[in-house]
């Protein structure tokens, strides 16, 4: 506290009369802005020291107690002619807040509807059926009951022989006798019905026709349905299997997947979950995937041996 201060005068704007004169500390000023109009104002604080010296502080401030009315419908600098209509809008800084928010009922209801619809779509559309089917354990009953090889032969001669050869030995199209695809009902049906590459789709064939075709083709000495079905239940790998697997692996796979299945250019196979899914493993190997070329020449038993070998890693 400076002993030299005689008094402090506070002026508002241009007024000559001081708003307040302070002589004793604490120098507290109370200004009720409700009594002065909104807009820019100046506060001038003059400190008079003993001996007549003066010091002046100026503070610019803006009072905004009431929202100014607003003219809606005519803008600054806008050209108008004829009758002009506009609104003068007034605001209220203390306007009560509006009610209305999301009620719990609506929230719960919409959650159930939105998530329920998605669930229902996946649960009742064909997708879930195919998920279940793909994970189902294949049994005798689940296969088409009466696959008629004779009917299949007729169909084959009429529809397929021109490309795939009279005895399914291949021609313009690949050989089908002994083709591992024949054992994979879903893939077989999909390719036939939708076509693939240069093969046109045969959407006219029914499920039964397809089953008959496969029955006929598997009777030609290729892999049978029974063989594919038995694959998941393959017996424990023997020493011989592992040895065979090792030789097949090192000739065909090691270049990309590493000598011990540790991965390299291709992904690691040792410990890969695919090893426990023989059908997928075979499928990927036979048909290729991504940058991996197809290896259709590897038969299922050789692949079983490769899997046995990889499982030891």
């Amino acid at each position, binding site marked *: 506290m400076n002993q030299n201060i005689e008094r402090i005068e506070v002026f508002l704007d241009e007024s000559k009369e001081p708003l307040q004169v302070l002589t004793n500390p604490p120098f507290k000023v109370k200004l009720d802005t409700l009594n002065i109009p909104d807009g820019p104002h100046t506060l001038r604080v003059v400190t008079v020291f003993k001996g007549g010296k003066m010091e002046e502080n100026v503070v610019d401030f803006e009072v*905004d107690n009431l*929202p100014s009315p607003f003219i809606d419908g005519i803008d*600054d600098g806008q050209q108008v002619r004829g009758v002009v209509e506009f609104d003068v809008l007034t605001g209220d*800084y*203390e*306007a009560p*807040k*509006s009610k*209305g*928010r*999301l009620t719990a009922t609506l*929230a719960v209801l*919409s*959650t159930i509807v*939105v*998530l329920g619809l*998605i*669930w229902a779509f*996946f649960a009742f559309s064909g*997708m*879930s059926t*195919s*998920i279940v089917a*793909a*994970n189902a354990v294949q049994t005798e009953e689940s296969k088409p009951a009466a696959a008629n090889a004779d009917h299949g032969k007729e169909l084959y001669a009429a529809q397929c022989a021109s490309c795939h050869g009279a005895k399914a030995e291949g021609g313009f199209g690949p050989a089908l006798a002994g083709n591992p695809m024949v054992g994979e009902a879903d893939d077989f049906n999909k390719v036939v019905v939708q076509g693939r590459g240069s093969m046109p789709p045969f959407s006219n064939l029914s499920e039964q026709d397809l089953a008959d075709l496969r029955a006929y083709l598997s009777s030609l000495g290729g892999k049978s349905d029974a063989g594919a079905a038995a694959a998941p239940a393959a017996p424990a790998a023997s020493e011989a299997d592992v040895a065979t697997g090792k030789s097949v692996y090192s000739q065909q796979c090691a270049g990309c997947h590493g000598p011990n299945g540790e991965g390299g250019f291709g992904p690691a196979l040792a410990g890969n*979950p*695919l090893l426990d*899914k023989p059908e*997928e493993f075979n*499928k*990927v190997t036979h048909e290729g*995937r991504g940058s991996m070329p197809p290896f259709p020449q590897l038969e299922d038993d050789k692949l079983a041996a490769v899997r046995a070998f990889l499982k030891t890693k």
Partner: protein
Amino acid sequence: MYKNDSVLPFFGLLLAVAFWMMAYYDGLHLAALAGHPLEELSGGQFGLITFGALFFIYGVMGYVSYWLEGDELRPGRHESPNSFWAGVTIATLVIILVALSGLLVQTVIYWANTGPVSYGFAGRLTGYILLDMAAILMIYKKYFVAEVVIAEDEHSEVPW
């Protein structure tokens, strides 16, 4: 659009869950049908997860804004509540932040010298650190920063 309420953010979060659910089911479907490993995303799943993430960020941020700024503004200065427990929470979060940052540095050093660390771990660790920082700022703003609301003239001189 009437006010800064929590209705749209709620639906944002709901849509996020919906998109992720679709991506999940779609993934199951693909994995089952095509021998597609679950961790490898298809193009469709990528899009679904993207929109899920977008609506999730939007929904969470909408709720944060509703919590910190309220549904309607009124001009004036509203002092902050200055809670003791908020301070304690911030201190705890800062300690966690320091610990997590140490872990992050360890991860980088290990990765550089020894070998790769699981991508999921690295990403999630970073995510937790950022989330922690966001939470600290949120609590600080709520309890220690005064809320100032101004009613500015629309012809303000910014930027010209």
